[in-house]
């Protein structure tokens, strides 16, 4: 009738998607109890990188700002935890707060430089900013330890004084953080603010003429995404007990980009699936072959050729 073509998913696909989410949630909740510590480790990686991928999705998927330097905030927050907890022997609260604050402050500073830029220019400038930070982590040896990185970060359980310890305990702490972040981000993209971001993605000129301060919305989106990426960085520092410049390099940022585009931008669920797919693929491949870089390269090319809309958008792009 007068209904515009919203190209939303059919009811069958929507039901199928709900089923997948429920099954995944059950698997992430109960699965680790039956798995050995290697697989619990992989699940922990997926959950942490899932937070990171969702944070890029706010920027890339919902706001339409393709950042190729997003791993920088993740890496800087991880470095902040490492420096605070080892060099300065700071406590748990100070290390976590410091990591998130420094990562977010950096996003607030970078945001000032990039929020008026769009499209491919945004891509190139965030790439350059991210790589400058990578260079800093690599060469500022007195603080960052250079190529050797920083090791000796205490485990989260010991640092926070939790009564439990071990991979399983850490996994569930991570899962709680993930759930909190996911709910916050879900609320954010459903809020009027999130709708405005989508409006800017679709037609910025129209949003501006409606009276929205589009610069401010882009800026806030950039800072919020940076803050969630910092949370992921803090968790990753505790997970690994070690930080190195590879967290910030271009390969890390574009792998993150691949997670979001492979999973399906502007869905939040898709990027988590993408993170899972990449983590599993990398670990399984590197167990069988030393040529995993080659295979990863081919995965990039095939993924773009085969599913440019992302896995979660197969069978109809979501209207949301």
């Amino acid at each position, binding site marked *: 009738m007068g209904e515009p073509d919203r190209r939303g998913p059919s009811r069958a696909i929507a039901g199928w998607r709900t089923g997948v989410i429920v099954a995944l949630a059950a698997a992430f909740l109960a699965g680790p109890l039956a798995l050995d510590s290697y697989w619990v480790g992989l699940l922990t990686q997926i959950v942490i990188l899932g937070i990171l991928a969702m944070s890029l999705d706010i920027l890339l998927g919902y706001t339409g700002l393709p950042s*190729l330097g997003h791993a920088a905030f993740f890496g800087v927050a991880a470095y902040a935890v490492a420096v605070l907890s080892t060099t300065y022997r700071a406590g748990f609260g100070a290390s976590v707060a410091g990591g998130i604050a420094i990562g977010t402050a950096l996003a607030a500073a970078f945001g000032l*430089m990039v929020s008026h830029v769009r499209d*491919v220019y945004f891509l190139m400038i965030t*790439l350059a900013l991210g790589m*400058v930070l990578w260079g*800093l982590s690599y*060469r500022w040896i007195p603080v960052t330890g250079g190529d050797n990185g920083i090791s000796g970060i205490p485990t989260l359980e010991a640092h926070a004084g939790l009564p439990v310890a071990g991979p399983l305990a850490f996994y569930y702490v991570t899962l709680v953080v993930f759930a909190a972040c996911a709910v916050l981000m879900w609320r954010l993209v459903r809020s009027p603010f999130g709708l405005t971001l989508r409006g800017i993605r679709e037609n910025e000129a129209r949003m501006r003429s409606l009276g929205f301060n589009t610069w401010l919305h882009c800026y806030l989106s950039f800072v919020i995404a940076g803050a969630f990426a910092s949370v992921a960085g803090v968790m990753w520092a505790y997970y690994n007990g070690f930080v190195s410049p590879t967290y910030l390099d271009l390969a890390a940022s574009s792998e993150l980009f691949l997670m979001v*585009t492979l999973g399906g931008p502007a869905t939040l669920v898709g990027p988590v699936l993408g993170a899972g797919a990449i983590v599993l693929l990398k670990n399984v491949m590197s167990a069988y072959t030393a040529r995993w870089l080659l295979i990863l390269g081919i995965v990039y090319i095939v993924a773009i050729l085969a599913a440019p809309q992302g896995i979660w958008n197969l069978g109809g792009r979501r209207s949301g």
Partner: protein
Amino acid sequence: MTYFITQSLNGLFSAALLFLIASGLTLAFGVMKIVNIAHGSFYMLGVYVAYTVVLRTGSLLAGAVVALVAVAAVGFVMQRFFLRRFTSDPLPQMMMTMGFALLFRDLALMIWGGDPFTLPYPAWLRGSMEAGEVVFPYYRLFVIAVAALVGVALWLVNEKTLVGARLRATVDDPEMASAIGINVARLSGVVFGVGAGLAAFGGVMGGPILGGYAGIDFDLLPLAFVVVIVGGMGSLTGALVGSIVVGMIDNFGKALVPELSYFTLFAPMMLVLALKPTGLYGRA
């Protein structure tokens, strides 16, 4: 003073290499609006191909010619069969070049192994020029001169030939250009290929000094991108000015505060982005 002159000459040498890399990057960006992450890989492939040729023939010139032609062909094929289908869709294009960058790195590791090496100096360019207290290797002067010649040649093609006119028209407005009968797809392929060849040629020129090693592709890429951003994306003049600015700052930065190298590039980039977001010579 001697120190200052020597460092400036070193800065000019860096600028010469950067110009060879960044000119192709900026032209490809201008025509195709592509962020090419594999551009550093073209430089790397250039060094490696030239290494193989130089080992067989002993001639750096032969190495340079073969590297230029071979890598230009690789670039052309990549554009023709993989990038062209995503014309004016920057995200898939960028991801595609990232895939190729990883592919090239691992292939280079497979074929040539991971040992670092340097290319030999040509025999007639050994030794150093001495003027008063300033001592400067002939080879570096040679590279500066070669880059200047390439710059002049590119400028002549761009300003004085029909191809150049088509190129400028396409950079200005690809849709309009194709409407008046310019084959934008083919022009993009040629520009991408030539840009790849130039980066490879830069690799050969830098080979006797920087050499080749695993990871050189991503070491040089940020510098090239900063050049393009500072100079203005799509502008050849911008690439020249940007190369000199970045080459000088990078060189003095490395000499004065080595632990902050790369980071010293941050200042010019920030300044340009704040004052003129499109870069010194870029158009919106």
